[in-house]
């Protein structure tokens, strides 16, 4: 019994980070209406950033957030402004093809610049755990989960109560009408993309104390984030959070009970099933989804 609880807890802890990364994707999707295929590469870039700050300047991963988060926000803004904004009026698939191009580009630039090696950060707390009535919980994972939860709550409050947050929600619903209100839609796109990148970066950096980075690590994160966003519902932040936890738990159990090679296959099957049965997701919005190909 304890064993199951142990697996469940590690799944939930992992799921928190997945939720964080996926919320970034969902925000970008909801506001800018772009399916960002390069999302995992944003995570990858943040992980490398954390690694190099540690390696070159001996900066602790948690402290490196001070540099990594603003840098990745800016990176997201630049991507949106100079690469995606110009193709905003083309079809959804063409926009996605552009992000596929960005993904290939970033992946291979990382390979060229930093080689294919696995890079890890070894801190004094990397292996530290707390024991709690027979359960062993990794401290960096617990910290990551806590930080993920906190930032998701902050995002929720931001969207709910600030004027800019309300404008973002209005754009999610109907960007043409939002424009009539005087909302500078393109500028809010920059903000949303920056925030989306920031959230994935946060997820990436928080993972660094207990995992390693390599150029192709982004692919699985992109896949994971898409599964979670679709499962939780496009445009639904709460749904994404729950779906993130759910997928984390599935992963933890699948890793223990299913052939590890088929672990990922399970996500994709879930993804396909959700798309077939309830494409708007479990908590998703109905409105606006036709425009990007759900009916």
């Amino acid at each position, binding site marked *: 019994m304890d064993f199951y609880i142990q697996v469940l807890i590690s799944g939930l802890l992992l799921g928190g980070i997945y939720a964080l990364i996926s919320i970034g994707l969902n925000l970008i999707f909801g506001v800018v209406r772009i399916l960002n295929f390069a999302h995992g590469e944003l995570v990858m870039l943040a992980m490398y950033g954390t690694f190099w700050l540690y390696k070159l300047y001996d900066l602790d991963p948690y402290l490196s957030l001070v540099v990594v988060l603003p840098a990745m926000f800016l990176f997201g803004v630049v991507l949106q402004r100079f690469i995606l904004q110009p193709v905003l009026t083309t079809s959804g698939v063409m926009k996605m093809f552009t992000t596929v191009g960005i993904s290939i580009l970033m992946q291979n630039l990382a390979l060229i610049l930093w080689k294919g090696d696995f890079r890890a950060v070894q801190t004094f707390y990397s292996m530290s755990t707390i024991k709690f009535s027979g359960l062993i919980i990794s401290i960096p994972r617990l910290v990551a989960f806590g930080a993920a939860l906190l930032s998701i709550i902050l995002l929720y409050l931001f969207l709910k109560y600030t004027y800019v947050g309300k404008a973002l929600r209005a754009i999610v619903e109907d960007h043409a*009408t939002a424009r009539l209100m005087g909302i500078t839609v393109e500028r809010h796109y920059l903000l949303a993309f920056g925030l989306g990148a920031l959230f994935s970066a946060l997820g990436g950096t928080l993972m660094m104390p207990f995992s390693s980075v390599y150029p192709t690590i982004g692919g699985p994160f992109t896949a994971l984030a898409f599964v979670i966003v679709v499962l939780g519902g496009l445009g639904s932040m709460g749904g994404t959070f729950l779906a993130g936890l759910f997928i984390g738990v599935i992963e933890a159990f699948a890793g223990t009970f299913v052939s590890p090679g088929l672990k990922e296959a399970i996500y994709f099957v879930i993804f396909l099933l959700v798309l077939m049965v309830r494409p708007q997701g479990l908590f998703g919005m109905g409105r606006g989804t036709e425009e990007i190909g759900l009916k």
Partner: protein
Amino acid sequence: MLNLKGIDCFYGDFQVLRDLSLKVEAGQIVALLGPNAAGKSSTLAAISGALPYTKGEINFCEKPIKGIKPEKVVDLGIALVPEGRKLFQTLTVRENLELGAYSRHAREKRGKTLQQVYELFPVLKDRSSQTAGSLSGGEQQMCAIGRGLMAQPRLLMIDEMSLGLSPILAKQMFTMVQEIAAIGITIFLVEQQVHHTMRVADYTYIIEKGHITMSGPTKEIAANEHVKKTYLGM
């Protein structure tokens, strides 16, 4: 105040507006009447900057506004209440109203404007924390007009306000429009509901197939035989 001169406008190959000219004088209620698909909404889209036009020009307060984006047009003092309300369904009534004041000049004063809108439509105050999607049709229309007023416009354009409203409610709404005009806001009404419109409008334009076919003080238009037959069903 608003002056459209010889507008030509296309959706692809399809010409929706043909050499369209009209004027809205300050302080008046001006109506644009016409059958389905005549190009009424397209005219409003062209004014609000959402639809580019190939020929002609539009002046607002003597200044050309061609090429100005919709989000900036509202800064100039032109607000549009779109056809079908287009409220942000998942946002609350209050949030909808607040967002109406997003443009630069209206933003600071939004608390005060909100109180004025609540005075005009007390029901919105009662419903303020309800989502807009849960309002009744009439309430939604009030919320949409309220949202337009939040931009502190000098010119308020309302597209098919009476759509989907009961006759009694529609009548009340037209009375509300007169009240709004009394505050000093110029009103450009686009309608198919001819009777009520003609009751409140000072000046009327008739649009057919993208072209203004008739215009004049409302009384004269109402007396016209063609209008009587086709629009008033007399």
